[in-house]
């Protein structure tokens, strides 16, 4: 009874807070949700998609954006884009990597090896700023460094449905969010581009993708939409290369824990049954192997 009254009181308090909710400013354009192969408890990366995304990265993004925490060897790692070691080696060899100093004390360039990391497009931030007046962010963990607010109560559902692809959905939307003409009343400063998904809408990066810009050999459509999804997938893998292992181990841990919890529950019931059946015998009794002192 009193508990029900407490609930009513709590609801009344929550209702009091509702006007505050209503005051929330009008939401910015929310990135649409996509279906990702790596979402959910059994999610796995789509190897072909990661390879296409890598192609988009190499041919378009890498001109400005580094991905310094990714090594060539990672391309052949399990749970990744599925290149063979030989393929990864061949890709590495196409890059020039600075090494040294050699015996003469000189730095020199040599073809990349599996152990090397992807070289940065600029030697330092100043060089990038001199060219673009901005530093293009590194892509190593960008899929986890971006997201958008879902707000209450959606985050509760997200928690229960394991929706954690905010970052990739945002990047996919951003790639397709450019509009030639900003809506009436919005001015974009010179050197900026209007993008409906970018916070404050003025993004310094020109639209990077256009239809048919990257050739696909596997028959996937060469559209901005497909490119956007592929590059986002690739960036998710770059940011979270252990995702497949994590979800696989997670399922094993879950099965183990559920069985253990079940066994413990029934053991607990059995142990406590004695207390429920013979309460009059209740004593802080020591286990049998330790004799009690009188």
């Amino acid at each position, binding site marked *: 009874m*009193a*508990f029900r*009254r*407490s*609930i009513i*009181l*709590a609801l009344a*308090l*929550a209702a009091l*807070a509702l*006007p*505050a909710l209503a*005051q929330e400013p009008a939401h910015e354009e929310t990135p649409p949700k996509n279906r990702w192969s790596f979402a959910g408890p059994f999610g796995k990366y789509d190897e072909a998609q990661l390879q296409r995304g890598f192609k988009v990265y190499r041919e378009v993004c890498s001109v400005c954006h580094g991905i310094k*925490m990714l090594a060539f060897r*990672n391309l052949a790692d399990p749970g990744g884009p599925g290149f063979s070691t030989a393929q990864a080696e061949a890709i590495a060899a196409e890059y020039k990597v600075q090494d040294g100093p050699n015996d003469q004390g000189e730095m020199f360039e040599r073809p990349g090896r599996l152990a090397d990391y992807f070289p940065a497009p600029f030697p330092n931030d100043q060089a990038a700023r001199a060219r673009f007046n901005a530093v293009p962010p590194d892509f*190593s*963990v*960008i899929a*986890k*460094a*971006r*997201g958008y607010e879902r707000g*209450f109560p959606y985050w509760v559902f*997200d*928690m229960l449905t*394991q929706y*954690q692809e*905010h*970052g990739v959905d945002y990047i996919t939307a951003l790639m397709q969010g450019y509009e030639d003409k900003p809506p009436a009343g919005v001015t974009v400063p010179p050197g900026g581009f209007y993008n409906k998904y970018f*916070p404050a809408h003025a993004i310094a990066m020109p639209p990077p993708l256009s239809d048919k810009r990257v050739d696909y050999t596997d028959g996937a459509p060469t559209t901005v939409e497909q490119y956007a999804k592929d590059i986002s997938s690739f960036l998710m893998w770059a940011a979270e*290369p*252990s995702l497949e*292992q*994590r979800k696989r*181990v*997670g399922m094993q841990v*879950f099965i183990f*824990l*559920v069985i*253990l*919890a079940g066994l*413990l*529950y029934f*053991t*607990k019931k059995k*142990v*406590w049954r004695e*207390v429920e059946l013979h*309460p*009059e015998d*209740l*004593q*802080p*009794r*020591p*286990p049998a*192997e*330790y*004799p009690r*002192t009188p």
Partner: protein
Amino acid sequence: MSAHATYQPRNAFMRWLERRLPIGGLVYSSFVVYPTPRNLNYWWTFGGILTFMLAVQILTGIVLAMHYMPHVDYAFDSVEHIMRDVNYGWLLRYAHANGASMFFLAAYIHVFRGMYYGSYKEPREVLWILGVIILILMIMTGFMGYVLPWGQMSFWAATVITNLFSAIPVVGEAIVTWLWGGYAVGEPTLNRFYALHYLLPFVIVGVVGLHIWALHVAGQNNPDGIEPQSEHDTVAFTPYATIKDSFLIIVFCLLFAWFVFYIPNFLGHPDNYIPANRSVTPAHIVPEWYYLPFYAILRAIPNKLLGVIALAASLVVLFFLPWLDTSRVRSARYRPVYRQFFWAFVVVCIGLGWLGSKPPEGNYVLFARIFTVYYFAYFLIILPVLGRVERTKPLPTSIAQAVLGTGLPIGAPAPPPSAHKA
């Protein structure tokens, strides 16, 4: 309480050891025959869950420390090195980061349980105070740990929180410079936070030891809030409490695993995957969820110094709770009015948490102020007055009676709690 069985080991070595260091007897009397009230419900398993989580945090933390580099240029990259190149590094890091959230979740439930059943009342005041000390140490440790990955939120959280000390008149600025080890959050700050983040968990272990010691002196409270009087009211810690605690620890692990394996970044902020940059301020600087109620109290007050005082007071007031609550009846089961104020207090704390995540503007501030007033009024006005005016329900004469419904008829006038000691 009843005379405990003494420990008489059968093993020759244990007998030899027992005469020189009676550690077997200590474990035996504390964790085997130790009498626990038979009516404990599952809310009493959170002490065990917290001990388990503390162990998880220390074990994962020690291994992480072997791979982490506390340097402004390498900290962020070394965390990613752990995620990518260390065997099961992702598991260690995600378990540690989400473990902090689970630790706080369990701690808050444990505190609310103590408040609901009046576990802080005589003779358990010191037990409660030690618990508040643990909570404050946890808050400090968690904050310093959040700074270590050296992302944007790490850096700016460190800046905002250390800057709170600048509100202290006259010496504030000097204190902040001393905390930073420089004129801004930088290398010395990161280094000392790392050192303290490694040290404080062991201080927590020490205070937890005292907490458990105090618990075993006073005995556990229970949902009826009356002291056990005979052996009929208690069961032995082993196997009864151990099996119950183990079951709930594993259930709690299921929740923990849900976060670690499936939504490991859900409770974090994406901005903390952007390396710290002192020339770019994030749009909204938000602390981790477990600090949000305190953050809301801080921002509810327009004056910086008063805000900091309110923030500190919101924790310090907990020390005085045993004396602020004047009711002689412990458990909310027998305090119908208190129970409603208690649940309103829980709603207010959750509401403050939600408001702490919102920008400090408009109605958010208004509600943060109303809730802050309730938070303090609960301790300083409601509890002292309520204990004097509330008509409590009759207490059962014994735990066995409460459980079995035997003995005195329910509803018979209850003797005052002190009489139960007889």
